[in-house]
């Protein structure tokens, strides 16, 4: 089923009620349709992966539009049960869902964590608390599509950081040396 052209649909995953409310509002103000869930497993269920069917069955369900369609998934990193990183991995190894851009949010600005997420295919890594300006950038990911190779994307992000230290999400990291 084709999405309404105007509204991009974001799936937000966070175990914190306060943060879910904030991210939901941030996204709505940026004119996105939002579905907020509290765990990785709820997110996978929403997207049509229930973990028991074979991946080809899931792919068929997704491609037939029988599951919920989203343009972006934004998830907290530290969650009880399935972490944001584990969710990211599951999404990127799913043939049906790996094209959906995923953004990770974390209250901790840890280089190795950021690198790991980017290497696993995350589009971006936002350090909490998330602001309106962080969210406005996300629309670029949703609109850009999935043309680039993952490594190229990661290299592009590092270059952005070096060229423009004021870039919102990555500027909270220490500068990278190539």
């Amino acid at each position: 089923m084709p999405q309404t052209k105007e509204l991009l649909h974001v799936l937000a995953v966070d175990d914190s009620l306060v943060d879910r409310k904030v991210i939901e509002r941030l996204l709505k103000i940026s004119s996105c349709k939002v579905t907020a869930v509290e765990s990785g497993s709820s997110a996978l269920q929403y997207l049509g992966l229930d973990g028991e069917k074979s991946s080809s069955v899931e792919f068929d369900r997704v491609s037939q539009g029988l599951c919920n369609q989203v343009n972006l998934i934004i998830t907290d990193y530290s969650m009880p049960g399935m972490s944001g990183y584990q969710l990211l991995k599951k999404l990127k190894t799913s043939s049906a869902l790996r094209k959906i851009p995923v953004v990770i949010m974390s209250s901790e600005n840890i280089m190795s964590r950021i690198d790991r997420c980017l290497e696993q295919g995350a589009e971006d890594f936002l350090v909490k608390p998330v602001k309106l300006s962080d969210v406005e950038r996300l629309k670029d990911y949703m609109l850009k599509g999935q043309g680039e190779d993952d490594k190229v994307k990661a290299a592009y992000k590092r270059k952005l950081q070096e060229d423009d230290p004021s870039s919102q999400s990555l500027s909270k990291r220490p500068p990278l040396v190539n």
Partner: protein
Amino acid sequence: MDIVNQLQRQYVDFLSSLYREGLLDDQFLQIQKLQDESNPDFVNEVVTLFFEDSEKLLHNLAIALDQQHVDYQKVDACVHQFKGSSSSIGAQRVRNICVSFRTCYDAKNLEGCLRCLQQVKDEYYLVKNKLQTLFRLEQQIVAAGGAIPIMG
């Protein structure tokens, strides 16, 4: 008209003092930006969620630290959540205590943890009190027919 101006000035002075004293940081301003005519109670709603969440966490922390064998992972989970939510609404001093709290439970220092628990409680109730005062001022301004001043 006079009353409204007076109340508005009181509001601005009060909110400024909260920033000055470090009780609130820029994130609170970010939260206020998310309130508009379509969502006129947004700040109040988020802050109320924060209050409910926090009181549950404080309760759970007290219980966790009162056990014969303290489960420091439970303590970690609570403090991590508290740090996150306080950071999300801009309750800076609460958040900062959570950071020190971590050092204590990482070291499994029970005395230190109990001290931190007391400190975080004190800071939490202080900011709660101040925010409730702030909301009362807002209500008074609106009741007197005025608009809530937008700061920053």
